[in-house]
């Protein structure tokens, strides 16, 4: 049996504080990552040549750039050109940029799978392009891209731990510090693992509920 060298009463408050930071990272990044994804996808599909190319370039860049490197650039690199963010803000910015790039690919797929006739019909009723996108195209495209977006959200939960590498003491970081102090890596990281598992499970449940709520008979294979 492993001899516990620490007191759970010491560990739990530390992990609790870290968990709050992790949740904050996720809950702030996800909505903006979602909106970012919509914007990039719309730019790619409906933008003029320049905007479309720009958005495509954005996606290529952030898909190609390792997230950790991106966080290093934002937190450690940008101050040398006079732009300084707190560690937490840097992490959130990195997550939004990266999450948005991936989200945009799912949303773009969703938009392109909406039949052309939907836009045609919307325009024929006198809607502007923007009204048609908002009222007709996006509600359908987002339903179709929900499974992909859900996946990306699950990834976000897990890669939020990278924030530790730029000094944000989220749960993994908090655990690491504690574990090093008491030399209790196994116990601490197992507990943290259970935390992530619980988080992902809850997220999965919520997503399933959303899917059910927005399901439409005969639409999107639901």
């Amino acid at each position, binding site marked *: 049996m492993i001899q516990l060298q620490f007191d759970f009463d010491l560990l739990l408050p530390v992990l609790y504080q870290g968990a709050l930071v992790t949740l904050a990272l996720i809950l702030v990044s996800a909505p903006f990552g979602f909106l970012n994804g919509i914007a990039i996808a719309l730019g790619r599909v409906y933008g003029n040549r320049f905007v479309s190319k720009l958005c495509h370039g954005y996606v290529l860049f952030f898909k190609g750039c390792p997230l950790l490197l991106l966080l290093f650039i934002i937190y450690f690199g940008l101050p040398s050109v006079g732009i300084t963010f707190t560690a937490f803000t840097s992490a959130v910015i990195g997550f939004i940029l990266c999450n948005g790039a991936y989200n945009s690919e799912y949303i773009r797929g969703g938009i392109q799978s909406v039949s052309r006739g939907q836009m045609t019909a919307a325009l*024929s009723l006198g809607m502007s392009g923007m009204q048609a996108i908002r009222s007709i195209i996006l509600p359908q495209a987002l339903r179709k891209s929900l499974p992909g977006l859900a996946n990306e959200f699950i990834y976000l939960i897990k890669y939020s731990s990278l924030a530790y590498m730029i000094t944000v003491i989220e749960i993994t970081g908090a655990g690491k510090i504690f574990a090093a102090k008491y030399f209790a890596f196994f116990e601490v990281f197992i507990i943290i693992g259970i935390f992530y598992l619980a988080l992902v499970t809850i997220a999965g449940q919520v997503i399933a509920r959303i899917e059910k709520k927005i399901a439409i008979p*005969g639409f999107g294979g639901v």
Partner: protein
Amino acid sequence: MVMHEMTDSEIILRVEDIHKCYGETEVLNGVSFNVRCGETKVFIGPSGTGKSTLLRCINQLTVPDSGSIWLNDEEVTHSGPLINQFRQKIGMVFQNFNLFDHLTAVGNVEIALIRVKGMNKADARKKALLELSQVGLLDKANAYPAELSGGQAQRLSIARALAMDPEVILFDEPTSSLDPELTREVLEVMRRLARAGMTMLVVTHEMGFALSVANEILFMEHGKIVEQGSPSDIQTSPAFARTRQFLGTFHDD
């Protein structure tokens, strides 16, 4: 078959010398005609002669290369962002319905009332339900498009167009994807509309409908109107040899 005399009512739509090419292919090769208020014009002709393209040019879903469209003496072509206002007055019904798949029947009808006409939700709902009852779909108000038969779907798309109170409705092969039974229920709605004085341009292969409802039948071939006349003319006058040959149902004396 009684012909309505249309000569006195005013011209609401003018189509002048419309040309449209796709690459080398000339789809529309100088098409002109006038539409009087309350009139039903039916376009017939072989596939690929530009009938659907012509309808799409009228509300600028397809922009013609040259020529002009006038609605009540206002130019629809080259109207820039004003086109959205013209399109409210020019309803369109599509071969494959193009219903909004994520909205219920009543949602399909009211969405443009709310978003385009800026109606409040209660009024839009009331008007949408009224339009649904006009096409016999009140009991399907909360059904989604996927839950409707083809005939119901097409009647819904007619209700959606009607809700905008258009001055003219374009029907682009409205029954081509329906079986004969469903076709009948859609044509019945269209027949009622025509009788009620709606101005309609119809591309169709339903000759029974054309002969009984149209004020004028226009036969198109190779991007041009080749022959045009009243249903009775087409059935009797020697000038309509090509149309009758196409229809294959009437014999020259």
